[in-house]
């Protein structure tokens, strides 16, 4: 990489230094000499670069090897703090990125710069006393994105990689630190194994169990399920290969996430509810982190993840609601739904390593961090529409930085389309889905959604009816009781008293079963419905990409025609320009097409997984519902039988 050529702004140097210092407390120590001399700047960047490369490699490994996947997946996040330190440099050094940020989005960056400078100044002072304190501060996640790198690795760099003393050193210490708490199933891969061996042996049984315990009920089920799945699903899902099934298996997640303590903050006009997210994981620096988030932030996370992982079905946040936002019941159900959303994300092995997700869990200065991330990825996550299924395709992710900038300058990909439409075209270009699979799926989705909506509506009514019934039962019992108080005769009074008592109990039981029903079937169906919106979003992504593809192809076709016309006139500047333009367009078209296809593939596998997950979830809840209603029924019979025996 030629930094010198691409690095044109001194701003980045300024930024780099403090941000690094702040980022890793440990690094601050190891790097102290590097930081002091600005001449070594590029050296340091090199090191960082290499580390990030290494991380990339690990990631790639994880992607490639199925059997070692778990280990790597859990290992990769371990490296994260390091990766995050390392990552900013390449990302920031990216020359095109500079123009993008420098010209268009200068201000947010500057703010963060100052911020981090202040923060770093403070940190440096504290460094000696408490080095680890600030290690999870915000910019770490803001700038750390190994994925953003678009430059291929050179052989030299790869060779460098393992010799780098800094990288291996920090890597080693890190691994040592974290390894103790790792639930490991396969342990051959670890370089520092001997050291941690004893510790691990001591703790081994504990940690083999702990990840299961920390997870919510569902993943455990799924685990067991997938183990026996081949038998169970042999008939119903013959088309699914075993590889597929393995893929369905949720990643073992160390994250234990709880959403707790909803608290109403703000005055009358800006009142909102803040929830505390309490994350516990051996991977985190402090093992547990508490941050405050509001509902809006969950939406942001959803959008951000959606934009980060095209074709991935993201666990959706709860729906927006304008009225009655501060009612206890509503807050509780929302809390529950958001907790489920986070847990689900944590269980997904691609999602639970997502930088934005980790940032969301840890950042103390979320509002700025989120804005920065949003700019970098161009996800447009905060301009959130009501509909979960609506999507935004980030041109940066789609086309890469350079091209994205050009496109953005012209007002987006479909801008050309828009302007042309006014002039020459009667009908706008339309994307028609060529793959029948998607069309069918989409139709199926619509039907299913309607059915689920209907179902959830009737469930809701049943719920209210049940509560009404409970209330009236109570009234009834009260009236019976007052008849009993007349004491017409001893026996009748006793009977009536017990009769009223039985009704009170039945009322309790009714309320319980109503609650149970909402908690099992109701929540599941609700979640299913929202997940469907998320699925729709994925389809939208594909069709949007397809739409872009159509536009670009159209442009390409026109450009070709133009070029042909011009070349007939003989060579000129115009021809050269046109050739260049044609090239970019072709590149663009290729990029979009690959993305489009990739998304299509991803959607296929995701859909299968989603269907499967949902089916299991649904069935489980149906069974829980059934069992609980059986129990309620037994209780009810028992109540009546006892009453009958004692009184009649």
């Amino acid at each position, binding site marked *: 990489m030629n930094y010198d050529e691409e690095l044109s702004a001194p701003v980045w140097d300024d930024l780099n230094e403090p941000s690094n210092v702040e980022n890793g407390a440990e690094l601050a120590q190891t790097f102290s000499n590097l930081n002091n001399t600005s001449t070594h700047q590029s050296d340091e960047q090199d090191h960082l670069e290499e580390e990030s490369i290494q991380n990339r490699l690990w990631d790639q490994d994880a992607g490639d090897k199925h059997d070692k996947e778990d280990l790597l997946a859990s290992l990769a996040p371990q490296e994260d703090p390091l990766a995050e330190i390392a990552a900013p440099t390449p990302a920031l050094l990216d020359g095109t990125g500079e123009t993008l940020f420098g010209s268009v989005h200068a201000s947010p960056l500057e703010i963060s710069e100052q911020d981090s400078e202040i923060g770093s100044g403070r940190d440096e002072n504290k460094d000696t006393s408490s080095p680890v304190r600030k290690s999870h501060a915000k910019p770490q996640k803001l700038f750390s994105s190994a994925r953003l790198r678009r430059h291929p690795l050179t052989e030299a760099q790869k060779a460098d990689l393992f010799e780098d003393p800094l990288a291996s050193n920090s890597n080693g210490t890190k691994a040592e630190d974290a390894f103790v708490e790792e639930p490991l199933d396969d342990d051959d891969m670890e370089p520092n194994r001997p050291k941690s061996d004893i510790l691990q042996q001591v703790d081994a049984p504990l940690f083999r169990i702990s990840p299961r315990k920390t997870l919510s009920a569902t993943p455990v*089920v799924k685990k*067991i*399920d997938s*183990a*026996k799945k081949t038998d*169970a699903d042999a*008939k*119903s899902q013959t088309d699914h290969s075993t590889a597929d099934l393995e893929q369905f298996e949720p990643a073992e997640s160390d994250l234990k996430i709880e959403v707790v303590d909803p608290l109403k903050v703000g005055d009358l006009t800006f009142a909102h509810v803040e929830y505390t997210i309490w994350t516990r994981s051996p991977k985190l620096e402090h093992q547990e982190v508490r941050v405050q988030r509001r509902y809006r932030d969950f939406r942001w996370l959803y959008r951000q993840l959606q934009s980060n992982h095209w074709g991935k079905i993201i666990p959706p946040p709860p729906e927006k609601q304008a009225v009655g936002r501060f009612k206890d019941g509503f807050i509780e159900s929302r809390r529950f739904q958001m907790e489920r959303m986070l847990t689900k994300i944590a269980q997904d092995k691609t999602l639970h390593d997502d930088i934005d997700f980790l940032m969301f869990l840890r950042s103390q200065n979320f509002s700025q961090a989120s804005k920065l991330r949003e700019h970098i990825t161009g996800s447009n996550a905060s301009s959130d529409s009501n509909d979960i299924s609506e999507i935004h395709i980030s041109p940066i992710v789609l086309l890469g930085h350079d091209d994205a900038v050009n496109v953005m300058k012209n007002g987006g990909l479909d801008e050309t389309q828009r302007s042309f439409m006014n002039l020459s075209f009667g009908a706008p270009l339309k994307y028609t889905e060529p793959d029948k699979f998607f069309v069918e*799926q989409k139709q*199926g989705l619509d*039907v*299913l959604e309607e*059915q689920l909506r*209907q*179902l959830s509506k*009737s*469930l809701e*009514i*049943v719920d209210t*009816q*049940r509560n*009404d*019934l409970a209330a*009236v*039962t109570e009234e*009834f019992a009260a*009236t019976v009781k*007052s*008849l009993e108080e*007349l004491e*017409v*005769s001893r*026996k*009748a009074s006793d*009977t009536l008293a017990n*009769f009223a008592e039985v009704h009170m109990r039945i009322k309790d039981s009714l309320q319980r079963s109503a609650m149970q029903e909402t908690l099992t079937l109701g929540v599941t169906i609700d979640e299913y419905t929202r997940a469907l919106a998320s699925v729709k979003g994925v389809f939208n992504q594909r069709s949007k990409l397809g739409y872009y593809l159509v536009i670009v192809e159209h442009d390409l076709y026109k450009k070709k025609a133009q070029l042909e016309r011009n070349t007939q006139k003989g060579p000129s500047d115009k021809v050269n320009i046109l050739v260049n333009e044609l090239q970019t367009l072709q590149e663009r078209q290729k990029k979009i097409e690959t993305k489009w296809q990739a998304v299509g593939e991803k959607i296929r596998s995701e859909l299968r997984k989603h*269907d499967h997950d949902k*089916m*299991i979830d649904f*069935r*489980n*809840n*149906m*069974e*829980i519902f*059934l*069992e609980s*209603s*059986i129990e309620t*029924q*037994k209780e*009810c*019979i*028992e109540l*009546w*039988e006892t009453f*009958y*025996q004692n*009184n*009649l």
Partner: protein
Amino acid sequence: MASAVPYDPYDDIDNNPFSEPAQTAEIGPETHPAENQGQIEQAKTSNPENENKDEPQQPISELLPERHSQAKKFQLMVKVTGLERVGTYTYKKDNPTVQFDVSTNLPTFRKQQHRNVKKTMTEFQNLFSFLNGATPETFVPALPLPSTNYGISNSEDYNKTLKNFQEWFDRISADPLLLRSAELAFFIESDFNTYTPVGKLKNTPVTGLKRKTLKQLTPPYDECLELAEFRPLVKSIHHLSKDIQVKLLKLCKIRKTLSQDENAVGQGFKELAQDSSHAKSHGKFYLKFGKTLTAVGDIDSVMATLDAATLYDGLEWIGEETYTVKEALTNRHFLMRELLQAQQNSKFRQEQARKLRAKRDVSPLKVDDAIRALKTATTAEHELTLKLRRITMNMLLQKQEWLEWFNTFLINCIKEYTMRKIEYERKKLSLLERIRSDVRAVDESGGLSRLGRGTRTGRDASAVIKPSQTSQGDSWTSDPRSHAFEPSVLKTEFDASIDTEPEDVSVAEDRYALDAKSAAHLLGTSTF
């Protein structure tokens, strides 16, 4: 007057014609007003009370000869044999024809045996209102409802109404005062649909606006504390049972709507089954689940009907009953008021007579008049006193009987209600348990099985899940049940709708089980 106290011309010397009659007359009235005043002042409450209690006991055979000596002499046996509902819907509902056999030794009847007597509800109502007016001494049992909440024209309604009428006849024939009423004979011996009250009501109870106004007044002082307390008790029973009815009705209505919504949920699952995206076996599973939920909803609806039919109807009858009792007690109050007036009247006459006596020269015409007036007043008062005593006495006896009846009836209602409740809750349970194996079979590792409930896995094992209710008792408790296990709970009216393929398991019919037609009827028409 002259005949009552023969005039003795030799008494002239004395010139005190009032001495004797005055004395006799004074015995009755004087004691009562004295008591009245005394008790209004709350001074000697205990004393007259004791007197009162002792007093009625002595002349029980005189006051209520029917109850005493020949009580067991006359008997009336009625056996209700059938019920006919003909004509338009409202006619069917409100005016059924009751068929019954009568055998009796009452002299009022022309013959001892009557077979297949047919009477319409209207005739019964006529008889009832006559009896109610003619015998103020007794609480005439209220008529049963012409139709039950089971909905007309099904066997349950038929049996229940029959039973109710039988009970009513039993109660009538248990009451010696009513038995002796000639009207009963007229009623039974008249032709079908021709009966109208024959006898004249001697002193009809106050009716209409007058009654309403009189009811507003504070009731007169009642020396019989038991009955004085009884009326407010009955009144509150009446109101409370009405209240309970209202609540119960609300309950039933909500239950019915709930069942509809449960059906909708079931329907939703059924629709899910049609979704092509699910695997075939799942489709079937959803279908079954949905059908079961629908059936459970239907059971809820049936339960609502049964609630209404057992407890609501029972309370309705109690309401009617308490109303008649209350009105009978009100009539007694009116009688007491009348007595008070009579007492005042006789007092006034006495006063007049006294004044006459005090005068030096008395015109014999005036004396004659005064004596005559005094005589009428005294006899009227005496008659009323006797009548009131008779009523009080009988009511005291009846009160016990009535309370007993109320107790047993109420408890029976609750019992019936509970029985049906248990039966249908059990059916619900067996319905739910029946798909349990299906739910498990689809997903061996899911749901609660991971809690160790289903220890055995595998398709065949899960099919063996036993129902928790068997003839050995319930699996969840070791308590033996007081009433024997009925295999019918394992079978419901809605089985046909659930099972896609017919089962050849035949379970013995029980007497409560509805046939398909009546089940449909129960579900179809809301009876309120």
